């Protein structure tokens, strides 16, 4: 009975770990890592929902009746590649911030901004 929801709870824990990194750490790269963990937990959530007990991978073959749900697989497959592309964009922004401010710590950036005005 309890095991039935175990996967979803692990997803929630992972998601919260990612969320915690995003709000509690000041380093921009660390924040991006937090976002990746958050993102992966959503992937795991979708894939867990797609699983059917006793089913097999959704590639049609003779003599197999039960397949896992292919639709979440499709959504997540493309989401992973889109995720890495957007992560790269975030990293590029972090690099530019480092060049402009000389730091990627949130507090130092804010201090510099306050001095300017």
């Amino acid at each position, binding site marked *: 009975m309890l095991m039935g*929801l*175990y*996967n*979803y*709870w*692990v997803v*929630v824990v992972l*998601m919260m*770990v990612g969320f*915690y*990194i995003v*709000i*509690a*750490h000041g380093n*921009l*790269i*660390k924040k*991006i*890592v937090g976002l*990746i*963990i958050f993102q*992966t937990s959503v*992937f*795991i959530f979708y*894939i*867990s929902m*797609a*699983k*059917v*007990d*006793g089913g097999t*991978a*959704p*590639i*049609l073959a003779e003599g197999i009746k039960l*397949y*896992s*749900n*292919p*639709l*979440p*697989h*499709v959504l997540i*497959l*493309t989401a*992973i*590649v*889109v995720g*890495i*592309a*957007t992560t*790269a*964009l975030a*990293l590029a922004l*972090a*690099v*530019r911030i*480092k060049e402009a401010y000389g730091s990627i*710590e949130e*507090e130092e950036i804010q201090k510099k901004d306050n001095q300017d005005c």
Partner: protein
Amino acid sequence: MAFLVGVAFAIVWMKDLLAVIMLLGIYGLLSASFFVAMDAVDVAFTEASVGAGISTLLMLVAIALTGRAEHPARHKPLLALAVVIFTGSLLIYGTLDMPYFGLAEAPIHQHVAPRYINDSMQEIGVPNIVTSVLASYRAFDTFGEAVVIFTAGMGVLALLSVARRREDDAKIDLLNIPMHEQHLIPRIVIKMLIPFILLFAFYVQFHGDFGPGGGFQAGVIFAAAIFLYTMLFGMSTAHRVINQSFIQMLAATGVLLYGSVGVVSLLNGKEFFDYSALSADPVGGQHLGILLIELGVGITVASTMVIIFFNFADRKEYPQRKKD
């Protein structure tokens, strides 16, 4: 699963960003093996090449540019912890209503999935259901995703591209030669491996109809081979082998190829991305359409990844001159 949680917590505590990124690579590999256990072979394939390969590399190049030490100061960890625990317990409360894991009667399996599983063989003629849903039933979505990837690549290009000069090349060459002579064994081994990696990428690209694989995975693997080459032989050699503007052209060509398949079916009086317009035999048309579209996706993904990596690495090798 428990491993995943352990690695995630380790990432929270680590201060050294290099260690964090290595752990992130392990995390990617672990989640890939979890996806295999969940029967999602296509997804596992993608996650293994993206999560454990490309993203680790990109993060490494990024910390080479921004420094690896994290500041110890944190803002109000207690408040953050409270918010996190509150949100987490709300989400756990939400899961109590969910159908149990692995149940075949869950609502998610009743909607469109049975149609895909039962009818896709007659309609598309491709054994891998994931490929037929990706490239045929939901071709419109996938087109949007290819465009997003292309746009992200262009964004990185706009943010990081540096104008290179001839005399810089000569200087960098002098720096590179002694450095790359040192790593004799990896150089020879990887030189032998690269053709096989490229061959594997093509296999994944064109075999996606029958087994796990397709344009997204093939593009990433292809890009990984080029990254390896660049790391061993230095940026200037890689620039001589691979023309930047050609790669940028290729990225656009991939998206165009995808889009034009849709336009061709429009011109033939069918709906956008209705592949039966491509050939007299509907199943043959589907095959041709999927092949072309996967090719477009593969080209876009591979060249976008190469653009992103080269721009990061260029930034490292040719440090920005003071606002010229």
